[in-house]
């Protein structure tokens, strides 16, 4: 069953196929304790120059899906099925040598913790040069020049001096900039950023996001940004996918998600955002319960054990059936919930919105 999410404004490549399209991606890991179903039917599309935000808790499957796009699970125990189309090529069926040619060149990834993601024993400059020389048959001097240019472009002062420094000699923000530079060495068309700002200070966070948006405008890259932080999504993304228990539970344009959400989980996410402009005694509303075990996913809606609104559904649908991802309206807003849409809109207007 393919349920897809299309990005709104089509800045398509004219061929008819979106730049990046995931169709029903499933990633399962067999372990001693059972089969971990990390991703269960993820689908979305993304065009160049646009940003897609994937939001969810730890264990929702968001990082795993990004690794699948890079093909980093090939050769491991993971079982990947479904389709990933990148610029006309299908990635899941690709061999490892083939997908290796794309890594770093067409698709690049920015990881969460730049300190552990860079090799501690090699200089930053050398690591950047290496990223270039893998895909380009050029002399080292050319690669070095490009590296210094990019270090400058990402806002690192004295780039030619910092070229010779080691990762531990950089501050956290600088390191993340360097990692972004490394990802850009080969002009990738798709950038996947996995929690790029989680390990950083708040002020630095804003700078990094600004940097990424600038670079996106300049290079017309597509960005997938994975985060648990809704503020980041609000700032950067045009479209959002909300994941829970390995599935998409709500998706659509960012304004729909923030102003007209229709899934109880999304309500919970929005409700747990601290607000500066409220009174001091206002309590933070948290979603009760804990994320589901990906080995023993419930038979029905994955969010059901934590949902406070089940009483609005007749019968046992919430427990027995996985709701389908259904389109609401015409703008690409999709929701997976058994509660009837009109009722959801009312619940949101009456109960949730006043408290946000």
């Amino acid at each position, binding site marked *: 069953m393919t349920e897809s999410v299309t990005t709104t404004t089509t800045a398509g490549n004219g061929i008819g196929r979106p730049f990046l399209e995931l169709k029903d991606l499933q990633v399962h890991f067999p372990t001693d304790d059972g089969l971990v179903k990390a991703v269960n039917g993820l689908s979305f599309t993304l065009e160049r120059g646009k940003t897609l935000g994937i939001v969810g808790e730890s264990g929702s499957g968001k990082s795993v899906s990004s690794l699948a796009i890079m093909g980093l699970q090939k050769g491991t125990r993971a079982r990947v099925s479904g389709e990933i189309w990148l610029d006309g090529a299908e990635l899941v069926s690709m061999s490892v040598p083939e997908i290796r040619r794309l890594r770093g060149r067409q698709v690049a990834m920015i990881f969460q913790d730049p300190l552990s993601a860079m090799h501690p024993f090699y200089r930053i400059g050398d690591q950047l040069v290496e990223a270039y020389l893998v895909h380009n048959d050029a002399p080292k001097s050319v690669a070095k020049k490009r590296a210094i240019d990019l270090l400058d472009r990402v806002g690192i002062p004295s780039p030619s001096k910092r070229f010779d420094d080691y990762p531990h000699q950089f501050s956290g923000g600088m390191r993340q900039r360097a990692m972004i530079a490394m990802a850009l060495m080969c002009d990738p068309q798709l950038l996947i950023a996995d929690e790029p700002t989680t390990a950083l200070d708040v002020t630095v966070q804003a700078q990094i996001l600004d940097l990424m948006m600038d670079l996106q405008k300049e290079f017309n890259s597509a960005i997938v940004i994975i985060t648990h932080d809704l503020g980041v999504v609000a700032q950067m993304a045009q479209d959002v996918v909300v994941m829970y228990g390995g599935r998409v539970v709500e998706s659509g344009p960012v304004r729909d998600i923030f102003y007209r959400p229709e899934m109880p989980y999304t309500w*919970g996410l929005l409700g*747990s955002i601290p607000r500066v402009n409220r009174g001091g005694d206002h309590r933070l509303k948290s979603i009760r319960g804990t994320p589901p075990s990906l080995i*023993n996913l419930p038979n029905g809606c994955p969010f059901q054990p934590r949902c406070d609104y089940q009483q609005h559904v007749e019968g046992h649908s919430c427990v027995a059936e996985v709701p389908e991802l259904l389109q609401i309206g015409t703008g690409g807003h999709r929701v997976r919930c058994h509660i009837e849409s009109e009722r959801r809109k009312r619940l949101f207007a009456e109960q949730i919105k006043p408290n946000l």
Partner: protein
Amino acid sequence: MTLGISEAQTPEGGLPADHLVETTEAKQIEGRSLGQIAWARLKKDKIAVASAIVILLIIGVAIFAPLIVKINGFPPDQFNKLDADGNPLLNTRDGGIPIGGLWGSGTSSEHWLGVEPQNGRDVFSRLVYGTRVSLLVALGGTIIAIVLGTVIGMVSGYVRGWVDTLLSRLMDIMLSFPTLLFVMALTPVIASRGQDLFGIPDDNKLRLGVLMFVLGFFGWAYLARIVRGQVLSLREREFVEAARSLGAGPVYVIFRQILPNLVPTLLVYTTLLIPSYITAEAALSFLGVGIKEPTSSWGRMIADASAWIESNPLYLFFPGTALFITVLAFNLLGDSVRDALDPRAGRS
């Protein structure tokens, strides 16, 4: 401003009972402590169980040595010249080699593992008594090393300041000693000194104690370093601060808060030390600076047997095999214990 999702601790409450029944098809995965997880894993590990059984058998042999030897009928110190029928056991014209048996070792239905050349002592009995020596020294040495290492490491790491500097220098010096040489050289010295100062005869009881002490004395420094490092980081953790803010004194913090966190490390180190000390005692006795005659030690037997390796090879390989099996069993168990304690659950 970081916006996030907080995970509430309250379990599912307020759900109608029948919904609960339907949703708890899922297995209840409770939280387990590291000890419980480790024990469960260990019980499942077939190799761990097998080696534990072997070790228990060996310990049993050591404890019941006198009984076993009684059944066998030949005390380990006894020089046997004749067998039950009155025939000589040893070929006195050929240097005292045992007559008959497997490969010239004198094995028979009476002397299951043969007799020693030249003096006719029963190899089986000596092997059995050798178990005692090996296990005692290893156990004693390990206890001393662990206790010393833990206490000094904890004090050093917790108190810090000049005490720490002093103790750390001490650890450095201890670790700079050429260990084997010192153990080799010290054992006879301390033994004879003990005899002089305290009037204790330099027999093997003293030697046993000296061996344990010397091995432990040169083994604590390595552990103390590790413990010190761990204590240094543990003492900054929040639970220590919390205890201190409630008024807990240093002794309480050290013994009730920090020590339990060191247990996995101590356990791992113990599993490494015991087989290593068994080998060390055998090596020392082999060289002649460990247990002396007439008490039997596997190492001493191997040394004696080396001269007879051409004509009576089994005389060397019986204690050799005993030594190998013992060390192997402890190493296997140690590996399994270490794997069980390893928090990473990933298996091949």
